[in-house]
């Protein structure tokens, strides 16, 4: 449902007559045309889709936020608060014509003893929501459909890791997309892991 915003899409400080900020919408399109990347910090992990450079800069920002919070208040930042802070930062870049919005979406996940597992997503417009399951990127609609079939609350982390990998393989378009590498990461009680493509195949084969 794309429309051309001729004249109203030159800067983020302009609304179109129908109340849209086209620069932000274009930023969201950048997310669809890209691949994911993992970054890890402490016991929070994030997955990103979009312009890698923007993603790296944003992950550095969120590291700083978490570190400052820890330094000021003496305990780890609650994920909701971190997501809010990152979202506020991203939103700031949608207000001015002197800068462009971030061309990436961010999923943050963490586990702590008080709150349990948490998942938040921040998109280029600066919105952040909590999720039980979410997907970003080109095949997000298909992935969301698959996710909705899962009974996440009753599954363990172990089971969900396999399901997530399966979903990525299912939604990958053999024709349109080039060969891909799957990077998987999960956070649970006590620690976090990252798994790279070659190990994935072995892991999946032995589990099935």
């Amino acid at each position, binding site marked *: 449902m794309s429309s051309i915003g001729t004249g109203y899409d030159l800067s983020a400080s302009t609304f179109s007559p129908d109340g849209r900020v086209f620069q932000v919408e274009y930023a969201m399109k950048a997310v669809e045309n890209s691949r994911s990347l993992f970054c890890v910090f402490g016991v929070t992990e994030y997955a990103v889709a979009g312009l890698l450079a923007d993603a790296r800069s944003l992950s550095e920002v969120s590291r700083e936020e978490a570190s400052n919070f820890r330094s*000021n*208040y*003496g*305990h780890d930042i*609650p994920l909701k*608060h971190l997501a809010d802070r990152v979202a506020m930062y991203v939103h700031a870049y949608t207000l001015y014509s002197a800068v462009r919005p971030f061309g990436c979406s961010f999923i943050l996940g963490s586990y702590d003893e*008080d709150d349990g597992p948490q998942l938040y997503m921040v998109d280029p417009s600066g919105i952040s929501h909590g999720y039980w399951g979410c997907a970003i990127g080109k095949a997000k609609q298909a992935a969301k459909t698959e996710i909705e079939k899962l009974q996440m609350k009753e599954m363990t982390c172990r089971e969900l890791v396999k399901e997530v990998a399966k979903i990525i393989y299912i939604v990958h378009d053999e024709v349109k997309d080039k060969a891909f590498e799957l990077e998987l990461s999960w956070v649970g009680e006590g620690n976090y892991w990252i798994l790279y493509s070659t190990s994935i195949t072995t892991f999946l084969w032995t589990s099935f």
Partner: protein
Amino acid sequence: TLEACCSRAWTSCFNSTSIMAVEFEGGVVIGADSRTTTGAYIANRVTDKLTPIHERIFCCRSGSAADTQAIADAVTYQLGFHSIELDEAPLVQTAASLFREMCYRYREELMAGIIVAGWDPRRGGQVYTVPVGGMMTRQPVSVGGSGSSYIYGYVDSNYRAGMSKEECLKFTAEALTLAMERDGSSGGVVRLAVVSEQGVERQVILGNQLPKFSTV
């Protein structure tokens, strides 16, 4: 020494103080004496050394009255801001960390021994002590001020884990009374407060109502 860093004539000090805090299942009991001195003169004999920092977080102040009031005001502001930002009740640990940050950073200028105690929904009743110098540690029971030296033995021998609220109140009142008896610079009334999920209940035990101990 205290004398070296404050001019006796001009500084109100609580170093003449006995303060105490005890954790129990469901909250904390905090207590303090009520004497503030400038040298030998009792500037205030009904002082309130139990200061609210947030709805369910208090601090017990000992040391320089001016320093502890200033620190408590600053932390109250920071914690209130933090709580609004998070849209949640603040953790007692956060309050204690804020006190620690300030007391450690400005340790050369300050004379403050603070006990932070309160209740939060995540970890229940907690007591953190931030003595002069600015360390911070959690303890099930903590005493402070000049009068505390006289009651370490009493506290160590009479504290039991798992006491009820009433037992903690009695324990605190008796310990503070003993401290006030022996420490010339503590005295007046015993102020007590119970901080729990239900809120804050304060009480005062006047001089003539204090528990009596034989002083043979």
